[in-house]
């Protein structure tokens, strides 16, 4: 028997704590101004570099794999904004390693809020603020220049798919991070993160085996090209929402299970190094 009032109280509590995390994030951005400036710079540079590549491609090929420029820009911007938003709000896969090895997890385990929630809540990244804003701008630009009609249905799917893409990406990385609880195999994460930089083009340009690998084994394509393609041409990609949403749910469930498994086997480090940052 689920007690509705209790459930609501729990969610309000979490929402309040999360709001406080966002407030702290804002405070940090305002306090460490040089770092924030560097973060904004890196976002702009990475956007410029990605766009340059796209423009070079489009200059040579007005139509790439059957997509015209506004559509290609939409695919690019969808992938980039998903990556950037996930990096801002769901950057924890990259911080788990540090949280564990510095012993900060000990502190998180002492508080009356789930540790996975805290690990997610305290890991916001400044480096993607300008990337996400400019990507959203490009998204708007491409939508305004498209020949197809943008009704409420498309916008609805845009939001759902962005969310699903963020969750899949997060779940995939977090699973790696959690399973590598003890092996310090951080390099894998960096590789996956780096690979996403290439996932902004239509998948048709990749050879079929690589395409299959990126769809079924390391499903980065489910966070970039396929959802964007579905939004533009729902008829030809009808399978996408089913696969994406079930992948998002599957990864979330697997992630929680992995996290619990990790905690049961957690051996807090007895190191003497003082740990800052609660």
């Amino acid at each position: 028997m689920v007690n509705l009032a209790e459930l609501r109280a729990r969610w309000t509590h979490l929402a309040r704590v999360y709001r406080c995390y966002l407030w702290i994030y804002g405070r940090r951005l305002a306090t460490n101004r040089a770092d924030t400036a560097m973060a904004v710079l890196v976002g702009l540079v990475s956007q410029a570099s990605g766009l340059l590549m796209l423009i070079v491609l489009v200059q040579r090929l007005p139509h790439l794999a059957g997509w015209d420029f506004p559509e290609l820009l939409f695919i690019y911007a969808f992938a980039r904004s998903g990556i950037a938003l996930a990096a801002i709000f769901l950057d924890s896969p990259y911080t788990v390693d540090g949280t564990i090895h510095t012993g900060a997890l000990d502190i998180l385990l002492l508080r009356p809020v789930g540790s996975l929630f805290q690990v997610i809540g305290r890991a916001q990244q400044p480096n993607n603020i300008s990337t996400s804003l400019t990507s959203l701008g490009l998204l708007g630009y491409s939508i305004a220049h498209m020949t197809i009609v943008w009704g409420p249905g498309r916008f609805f799917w845009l939001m759902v798919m962005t969310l699903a893409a963020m969750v899949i990406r997060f779940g995939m990385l977090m699973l790696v991070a959690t399973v590598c609880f003890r092996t310090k195999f951080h390099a894998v994460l960096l590789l996956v993160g780096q690979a996403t930089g290439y996932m902004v083009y239509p998948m048709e340009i990749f050879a079929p085996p690589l395409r299959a690998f990126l769809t079924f084994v390391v499903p980065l394509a489910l966070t970039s090209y396929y959802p964007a393609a579905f939004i533009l041409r729902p008829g030809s990609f009808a399978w996408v929402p089913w696969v994406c949403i079930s992948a998002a749910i599957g990864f979330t469930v697997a992630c929680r299970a992995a996290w619990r498994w990790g905690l049961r086997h957690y051996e807090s480090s007895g190191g003497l190094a003082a740990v800052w940052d609660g």
Partner: protein
Amino acid sequence: MIRARQLRKVFQASVPHRGRLAGLRNFLAPDSREIIAVEDVDFTLTPGESVGYLGPNGAGQSTTIKMLTGILVPTSGTVEIGGLSPHRDRLRNSRQIGVVFGQRSQLIFDLPVSDSYELLRHMYEIPLQRFRENLIRFGEVLETGPLLDRQVRTLSLGQRMRCEILASLLHEPKVLFLDEPTIGLDIVAKDRIRAFIQQINHDDGVTVLLTTHDLADIELLCPRVIIIDHGRVIHDGSLIEMRKDLATDRLVCASMGDPTTAAAVAAAFGGEAGMNVVVEGRSVRLTFDQRRIGTLDVVRKLLSQAEPSDLVISEESVEALVKRIYQQPEPS
């Protein structure tokens, strides 16, 4: 309030490979062996008690504290804090305990102290009125008032530790765990922290379990002491009892007229079993176990040999006592 039964924790320690492709082999198939950190630990704390938990480095105090607070899952045995199991009911249990780790921080490094407290207020759902009252009430003794607006990274260790203690008490826990709260602090900072711990234990009835390497902490704060070594409890009782039972060594220190007399006196005691004799210039120091050799007998014999210009009889210090207990051989 706190009950530990048959508590046991075994770690898997990885043993690094050496030689060719060591890195790769460590990643693929690390070797490991078992290390018993805590073995058959049993104790109970009644509400309002203040207990010192002692042991040499690596004896298992930190591991015990981590099991009592729900960070680690015991390999076997049970823990109960106010009727809750820390690792099973971790979230509920966390509302009734406060924890201070001397080597960990729960404050946000690059922001003012008050920002960290704000986060804790939301986490523990402390009503705003209560929160403000607690900040003032606890802040009085800890003198944290002027520190609230300072960035954590600009605080001295002592200032930071006071803020940490306040952070762990904002939600008014019934039990406070302190793992080496005074490590690395100067005397003034230590005194302030001790006074505060004493106050919340006496006035608010908070149950305190404290680990430390500074025995002055224990002497001032903890009527009861539990000593652990090699993962096992080797003593559990009041500090006074511990003295009575274990501080059996007596030291008789006599100053003589000249070094020759001192040497002669030392020679007279030299052959006696269980007697430790040290000569330093004109003075002789005799250490012995008073259960085996009567103190009075020693003094009588001494006076029969020569007439000392000064005579001091003293008990073993707590420091020396604990050191001696630690040095007992490992039970096989």
